[in-house]
């Protein structure tokens, strides 16, 4: 570095500093460092588990939240209906009557599905609205939801009875809507449009109710079960490139609406590898050359060989020998993805971004033979956690009822890796089930 005149002063000062007497380490300092390093390693092993625990917790909370939100929306819609109806009619009906009405509602419910309610009597509709309000008031929220569930079950079981009068009430309409998971059903649209506009309040009630329910029912759950193969890029290791990891996985997620979904999963992949390597013991000079190669390419295989070389103290001796190198690797993948779908329920293509956490277990065993005798055996088990951002591309094709075929490919680039693994490419196929 060049110093100008102004810096001459600093140069002299720096020279003085650099002439400080060197300080020698004490054994206490090494002990302290060793302990601190061990502690640091332990702490580092904990955070990935905490991270994934946090992600799983968030997903669980999300599932519970969306599930509750759906129920509350339905309840809210009923509440709105009741309030509006109350303002128009102050008639009082006792609890016994309400119970009967539930039964009536259930029995008459079938007509809604059969589109026979188009010409119903509007005044009767008003009465039923009032009755619902009375039904709701004496009960708490949980009981209301239970009643709704009961109505749902009964309405399904009675749909084929021929002697049902062409009558219905809002309660059943809401229940019917709830059963339609993604869209407003055709019967409801007909009901809304065909209702005689003699009472604006009732129309607005129904519109509000349908809107509320349509919004909340756009969330659906699904799971995917499948198999996947994976090509890992161990860039700096001596793995054959033509071997694939194979395994099974399970994903579960939520459709936020028709376009967006989130997905969380777990999959396990396994590779068993055996490699036989023949070699000639090397001279000391060649050994140094091998060490240099190891540093340059961080080559695990050569590193292991070095260990054996040290064990056998072969220096300056030429022998022929072989080593059997066994390597078992298990990958536990914990993917998290946000997907954007293009298409419809029957067929869709999606792009995904997310993160991939990978717990790796590796069991290495190397046996060295000279001639026919076993000269050394060394095994090593390692665990590691790797973390990678992921991009993916996939598609769904409906094949039967709620089942769809799922195909996907994902690419992940690891940010940290004890295996010197840089990236992973996965192909997945399996089945998807929509709840």
């Amino acid at each position, binding site marked *: 570095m060049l110093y100008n005149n102004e810096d001459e002063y600093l140069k*002299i*000062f*720096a020279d003085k500093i650099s002439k*400080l007497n060197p300080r020698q380490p004490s054994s206490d300092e090494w002990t302290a460092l060793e302990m601190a390093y061990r502690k640091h390693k332990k702490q580092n092993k904990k955070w990935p588990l905490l991270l994934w625990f946090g992600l799983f917790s968030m997903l669980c909370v999300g599932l519970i939240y969306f599930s509750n939100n759906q129920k509350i929306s339905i309840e809210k819609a009923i509440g709105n209906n009741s309030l509006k109806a109350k303002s128009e009619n102050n008639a009082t009906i006792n609890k016994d009557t309400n119970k009967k009405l539930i039964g009536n509602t259930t029995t008459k419910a079938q007509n809604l599905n059969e589109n026979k309610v188009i010409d119903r009597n509007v005044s009767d509709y008003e009465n039923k609205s009032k009755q619902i309000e009375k039904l709701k008031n004496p009960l708490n929220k949980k009981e209301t939801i239970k009643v709704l569930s009961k109505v749902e079950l009964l309405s399904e079981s009675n749909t084929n009875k021929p002697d049902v009068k062409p009558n219905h009430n809002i309660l059943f309409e809401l229940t019917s809507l709830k059963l339609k998971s993604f869209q407003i059903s055709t019967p409801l649209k007909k009901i809304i449009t065909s209702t005689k506009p003699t009472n604006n309040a009732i129309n607005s009630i129904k519109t509000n109710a349908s809107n509320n329910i349509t919004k909340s029912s756009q969330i659906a759950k699904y799971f995917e079960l499948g198999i996947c193969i994976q090509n890992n890029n161990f860039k700096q290791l001596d793995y054959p490139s033509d071997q694939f990891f194979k395994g099974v996985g399970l994903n579960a997620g939520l459709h936020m609406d028709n376009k967006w979904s989130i997905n969380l999963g777990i999959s396990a992949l396994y590779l068993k590898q055996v490699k036989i390597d023949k070699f000639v013991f090397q001279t000391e000079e060649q050994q140094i050359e091998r*060490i240099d190669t190891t540093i340059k390419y961080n080559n695990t295989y050569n590193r292991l060989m070095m260990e054996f070389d040290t064990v056998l103290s072969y220096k300056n001796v030429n022998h022929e020998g072989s080593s059997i190198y066994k390597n078992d690797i298990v990958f536990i993948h914990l993917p998290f993805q946000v997907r954007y779908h293009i298409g419809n329920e029957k067929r869709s293509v999606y792009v995904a971004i997310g993160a991939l956490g990978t717990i790796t277990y590796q069991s290495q065993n190397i046996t060295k033979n000279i001639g026919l005798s076993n000269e050394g055996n060394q095994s090593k088990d390692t665990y590691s956690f790797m973390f990678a951002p992921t991009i993916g591309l996939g598609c769904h094709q409906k094949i039967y009822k709620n089942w769809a075929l799922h195909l996907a490919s994902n690419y992940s680039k690891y940010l940290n890796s004890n295996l010197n693994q840089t990236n992973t490419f996965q192909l997945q196929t399996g089945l998807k089930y929509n709840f």
Partner: protein
Amino acid sequence: MKDFTEQEIILGCVKEDSRFQRLLFEKYYSKMFAICIRFSQNEEEAKDILQEGFIKAFERIKKFKAESSLNTWLSRIMVNHSIDCLKNRNKNLFSSISENMLTIPDSTEFEEELVKDLSPEEALDLLQKLPDGYRTIINLYAVEGLSHKQIGENLGISEGTSKSQLSKARTFLKKLVNNLNTYVV
């Protein structure tokens, strides 16, 4: 114990063999401690920085590509970690310096030759009395030999700020040297 080459020590550290880690620690201790003591205010702080720096080195040695010498690589880790520690302690290294400058009396008798008469221990003592920001910039510029551009990148400041702060640091140091006998922190 057998003398191991640098490559063997690296290999041992990659395998997390504590014997080789100790060898690395003992071999480079004095050089690394000299770096840490220059950046810190006292010996205890330097020891802490040194320990954390070696932990980082043990962790990252797997990524060591042998593009530079191990000594250079370790030195960079120690310097960077020292800067990180200073930044953690004082978010803005140059914020409170101007107030400190007021406490230093101006010297009427400017003698540049005084610095030549300093012993290394006195020089270190004066360096440690400098505010964190000035001490850092003098270390990086005069001792480590970094350019203003490199200092700017290291400290997250502009090249101009680096120059101006070095000028102030130099003035501050001169005042400390000139008032060596009278100034007490």
